């Protein structure tokens, strides 16, 4: 199946980071739906119909508890289907990777399902498939998450498996070596994909290898080779503590029942003091730099432009979301309209803020047909400059309504609800965040949008990464004099490939 995609895939996760809401505010007074006319003669098909008032979102019921060992429990009830999502959110991730051992957190997560003191890797997988449940673990920058999606008919057995994986991983040596080999091979394969090379080069260019955000979460071939079983155990023992974790359960469950089960599973988990992880705010670029990474024969040039954005805790959160929706966060955003719908240079263009504990990246991106690489750069810069002017009021209203009125759909499924609430846990944001989100979006003004655009989007201090066919695209890019141009090849970005 092929679809008319709205955004480039690399931005999806960044864009998902900012949505919320409940009650709906409209910019025009609601008009009741007129009774249907009885004869076709009275129907005017040339005008869009007048709509009634948009619905109010009733947020799901949230119950919070805490066990004596400090484990927080958040239960969100959704009784539509007999299913549940269970997530153990540990508030430490790749940010805490030891120097030179990037990828430790993600390797810890990968190993959780590869053996416990009571089950082998194959037994874990057998039990999950037999129960018909999905069990996985992953790490982001500031969190590690063990996730279970299960029919509630299997909740007892599924939770037993979930608890085993979360609390009793044994990091078996043979399994670690197998998983390490898979990881190392996957890292080699990154060389095949221009967009992935561009992501890597951009993070490195914006933050530098000294900053956690400048390094890859899944590590490098060198760092992954150097991580020992003891490193994994140390990371796990230090950070996987009940007082550093929250159990989030969404679905066809009752709070008292969840608490009882949580006591049984996690009650004996012992607390410990967990070192705070701090990530410094990276310093921004002094001028524009274009890093051109040669990928001979590439049919498209992978563009990543931007710089340092904002932390999740920013008071500019809602203004940033509105500004980004205008710029590159929706199908009708300026970047997509310009680069795709006006010029046909790409299948999709967009932008997003990686809102993390510390200021993450702001990235505008697209995959551009090789022959239009220089033309696309002109249009990108034009839009990054124009967003600093006043956004017309109708365009602003559209973006705000898109964010406000689209909120109910985000709370439809158990997975959807979990993904809305998980970032609140990670970043310590009150759980009633969505209750006021609609009003907060409504309060964003033209001046707010202009202010955050000018603060976070600086077309004169951009980091630009273009991964593409150098011999075809370099002359055109140089002619535009975008700033300092640095030529790299793939091995500069990813290191030399091992000899086969």
């Amino acid at each position: 199946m092929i679809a008319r995609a709205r955004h480039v895939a690399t931005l999806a996760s960044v864009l998902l980071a900012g949505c919320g809401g409940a009650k709906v505010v409209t910019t025009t007074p609601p008009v009741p739906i007129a009774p249907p006319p009885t004869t076709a003669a009275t129907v005017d098909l040339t005008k869009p119909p007048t709509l009634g008032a948009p619905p109010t979102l009733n947020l799901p019921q949230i119950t919070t508890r805490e066990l004596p060992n400090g484990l927080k429990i958040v239960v969100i009830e959704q009784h539509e289907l007999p299913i549940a999502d269970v997530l153990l959110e540990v508030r430490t991730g790749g940010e805490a990777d030891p120097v030179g051992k990037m990828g430790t957190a993600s390797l810890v997560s990968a190993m959780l399902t590869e053996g416990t003191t009571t089950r082998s890797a194959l037994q874990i997988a057998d039990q999950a498939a037999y129960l018909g449940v999905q069990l996985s673990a992953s790490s982001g920058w500031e969190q590690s998450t063990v996730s279970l999606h299960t029919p509630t008919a299997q909740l007892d057995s599924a939770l037993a498996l979930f608890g085993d994986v979360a609390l009793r991983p044994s990091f078996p040596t043979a399994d670690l070596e197998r998983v390490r080999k898979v990881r190392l091979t996957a890292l080699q394969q990154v060389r095949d994909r221009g967009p992935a090379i561009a992501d890597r080069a951009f993070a490195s260019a914006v933050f530098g290898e000294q900053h956690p955000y400048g390094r890859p979460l899944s590590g490098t071939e060198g760092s992954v080779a150097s991580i020992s079983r003891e490193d994994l155990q140390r990371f796990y023992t230090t950070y996987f503590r009940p007082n550093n974790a929250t159990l989030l359960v969404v679905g066809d469950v009752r709070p008292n029942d969840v608490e009882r089960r949580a006591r049984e599973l996690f009650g004996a988990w012992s607390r410990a003091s967990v070192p705070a992880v701090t990530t410094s705010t990276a310093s921004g670029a002094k001028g524009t730099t274009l890093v051109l990474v040669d990928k001979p024969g590439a049919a498209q040039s992978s563009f990543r432009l931007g710089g340092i954005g904002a932390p999740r805790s920013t008071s500019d959160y809602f203004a940033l979301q509105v500004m980004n929706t205008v710029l590159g966060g929706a199908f009708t955003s300026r970047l997509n309209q310009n680069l795709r719908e006006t010029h046909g240079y790409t299948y999709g263009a967009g932008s997003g803020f990686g809102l993390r504990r510390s200021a993450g990246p702001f990235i505008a991106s697209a995959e551009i047909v090789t022959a239009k690489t220089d033309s696309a750069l002109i249009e990108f810069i034009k839009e990054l400059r124009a967003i600093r002017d006043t956004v017309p009021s109708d365009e602003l209203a559209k973006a705000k309504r898109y964010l406000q009125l689209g909120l109910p759909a985000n709370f439809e499924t158990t997975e959807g609800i979990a993904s809305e609430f998980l970032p609140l846990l990670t970043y310590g944001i009150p759980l009633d965040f969505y209750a006021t989100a609609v009003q907060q979006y409504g309060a964003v003004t033209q001046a707010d949008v202009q202010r955050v655009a000018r603060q976070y989007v600086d077309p004169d201090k951009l980091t630009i990464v273009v991964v593409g066919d150098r011999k075809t695209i370099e002359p055109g890019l140089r002619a535009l004099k975008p700033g300092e141009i640095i030529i790299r090849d793939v091995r500069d970005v990813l290191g030399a490939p091992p000899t086969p």
Partner: protein
Amino acid sequence: MSIMGLAVPLAAQQTASAPGVPKLRFEKTTLANGLEVILHEDHSTPIVVVNTWYHVGSGDEKPGRTGFAHLFEHVMFMGSQNVPVGQFDKWLEAVGADNNGSTTTDRTNYYEVLPSNALPLALWLDADRMGRLLPVMDQAKLDLQRDVVKNERRQRYDNTPYGRAGETIMAALFPAAHPYHWTTIGSMTDLSAASLDDVKDFFRTYYAPNNATLVIAGDFNRDSALTWVQRYFGSIPRGAKSPERPVVPAFAVARDTFLVLEDKVTLPRLYETWHSVKIFHPDDAALDVLADVLAGDKNSRLYKRLVFDMQVAQDVNAFQSSGRLDGYFQIIVTPKPGQLPSRMLALVTEEIGKIARDGVTPRELARSLNSRRASFLDNLASVLGKSNQLASYDYMAGTPDYVQQDLARYEKITAADVQRVAGEYLNKPKVVLTVVPEGRRQLMVTGGAK
């Protein structure tokens, strides 16, 4: 009901888990102009989905115009008589809606996910493009979306590792006259050749109300919805002619075919493909289960042997792909650095042989069935998912009311069924493609490897 532990006898385990799949309630009606309308109410979230399936896909394309059904899908978003260029998306975003479309070999769909108050807007927009697309169609709209689609092809196929494997295999597996001989994205040459006359002709042939099914699912009032549907769609005339349906030629792959494709990749990859059966064929579900047994999870035959135990492969994949008209079964293996694709082929052949000779265990069957049963439940979680299911069953099975029958196909699969289809289908001549790093054609698997 709870699941028993590992110690319980195998026979008991297989029936231990049975979370039922709720029935999907719906109402179906047909307008005088032939438009099928399916309604499914679900008031749990204040959103509603409008999902229109046109019964046309890349399988309906003519020689020299591959990719056209999908290119046409893009043109459908460029405005219609009462919707200026660009406003389709803007009006929908301004009411908080998302929308998209997709094209397969068999059908094309268009959907909107809306706050429930905005239902009439989506119906009006979709009716306007169903009834009045051509009066404002022009060369510029076609040319623009042609460029976008060519970039879609570059992004998803040409500039993606292994991205051209699918079209290479389909061209070799299905004969030239077969509707699945080419893939949905089409060729650059054919995309370039598409003309404005093609757009007009295609619209008149396939985009008539009597060639479409409209599904409304979610939070809406039935009577209001039917009134709006009648108001906006009721006056659209039937298509002048009934579209010609693609004819599937009877064929069999006569002998093993070995192909090689050079690509900008680090590792070679082996693709084995067999002609199989279409969706809801009596053997379709057993082939799905066979795919699970071969590569569905860590304990599956190929994953456990090649990736877990021997560690000679980076990944394995197996699936039965069944369309409305025909199907194929595919196994994909990426060897680890330094490993030969020919060895992968030999190992795969060995594992298929074991299943065909010795069958599968009750536990393997239970893992597959229980996982599939759970995913039936998940398919009901969103109204968009449900709307697609209703439209798909209606088109593929002849009735929207088919969830239980679909699941029942899997519930009754036996170990003997899986063993039989392994021997019957995967013993037939196949198409073997090796994608190799540029300049390393010597890695190609050839007939001698077997």
